[in-house]
């Protein structure tokens, strides 16, 4: 038995489909950007509420975090897109694309920021309060700058996952990068080139973001004695 690797390679695939592929990548980045911005806000607010044990909000945030983290995001997408219309809520594919990753990323980010804020020594907060800062001012001037830096690497990891998770929008046929590439494949049957384009596209984005983590970590690392 001989293994025949029928490797067909046609460079023109990339020039001919460049516009469509780039449009798909643009939609991936759009949905990711909105999702990341929302997840950042959710994470900061709910993470602070969790870390400061603000009654009611903290418990509700805890339920939200556990509910999202312990259920698959793909089922969450099915719920938003295929089940909600049953009770009269119709969201279009683009909204589901960013909303799903926003809700998902927000839950993980709440944990990232909670951990960061809790890592700030209590005495710093006490010092702020003793200096006459309000609780809000103490948070904004003391806890946020220090805790935010501590949570930055893990939160960027969550943003990387957000970008990767937009590929799941394939199931709702939102024409982001993966869906676009597979639609092109269905027409051209140039499977090798399609997956090469997919792999290169995602790896460029994901690896760039990983490099960013390292740069940010080095740049924003807390001076040794503050820790």
């Amino acid at each position, binding site marked *: *038995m001989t293994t025949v690797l029928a490797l067909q390679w046609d460079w023109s695939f990339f020039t001919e489909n460049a516009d469509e592929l780039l449009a798909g990548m643009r939609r991936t980045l759009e949905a990711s950007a909105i999702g990341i911005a929302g997840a950042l806000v959710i994470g900061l607010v709910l993470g602070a509420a969790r870390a400061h044990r603000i009654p009611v909000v903290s418990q509700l945030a805890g339920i939200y975090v556990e509910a999202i983290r312990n259920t698959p995001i*793909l*089922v969450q997408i*099915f719920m938003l897109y295929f089940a*909600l219309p*049953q009770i009269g809520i119709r969201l279009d594919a683009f909204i589901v694309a960013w909303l799903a990753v926003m809700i998902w990323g927000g839950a993980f980010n709440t944990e990232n920021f909670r951990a960061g804020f809790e890592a700030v020594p209590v005495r710093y907060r006490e010092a702020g309060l003793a200096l006459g800062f309000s609780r809000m001012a103490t948070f904004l001037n003391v806890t946020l700058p220090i805790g935010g830096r501590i949570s930055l690497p893990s939160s960027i990891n969550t943003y990387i996952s957000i970008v990767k998770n937009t590929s*799941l929008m394939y199931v709702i046929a939102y024409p982001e990068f993966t869906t676009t590439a597979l639609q092109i494949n269905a027409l051209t049957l140039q499977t090798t080139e399609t*997956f090469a384009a997919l792999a290169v596209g995602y790896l460029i984005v994901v690896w760039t973001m990983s490099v960013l983590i390292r740069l940010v970590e080095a740049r924003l690392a807390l001076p040794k004695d503050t820790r």
Partner: protein
Amino acid sequence: MNIPDWVQPVAEYVFRTGLVNTLKISALALVGSTVIGIVLGTLLTIRFLPGQALIRLYIEVWRGLPILVTIFMIFFLLPSLSQQLRVDDPLIAAAIGLTLWGSAQVAEATRGAVASIPREQHEASAALGFGWIGRHVHVILPQAVRRLLPPIVGLLVNIIQNTTIAQVIGAPELLESSERQVERLTFEGQEHAVEIYGAVMVLFFLISFPLTRLAAYLERRLV
């Protein structure tokens, strides 16, 4: 309380087919990820081993690609390269895809865990006459496993949740099997998507939540 008539056949199919297949994919992927990941991660700790760049590439590629793309690669790209590489069973294709991703995660964790074992342990076991393999199998890895356990339980939670991605290649796991039931009922003029997908979420929660708690507990106890 009366249970509506549509519930029983749905539950039966989703449990007998969906849940069983989800557990099958998860078990295969967990074992594959752990074995491959520990070997690759340990190899990464050797200094000046030729070919290490390839292991790094393996880790960065499979961690970097969305699992959906990886599973599609196994299912659609491999057979287009060669008929002998065809994976007919979508359950196996999904398990392979999840293993590529999971083994990259375990390899990273193993590298860290092995590196955290003090040098003296290596030196002492070398002095006792152990070769590289004996040293790792009998001395280093048993200690590293303590540190590996929390991330591996965490990985199991992620694997179980990510088995749902096998839905895209039609593997009848929990999500696919419940989608089939939703569609069957819709075809018969009944809409129960909210209840069925809601129940699937509850089921995943019941499986995942104790495991995430276990991972957190192990993290506190063992590290």
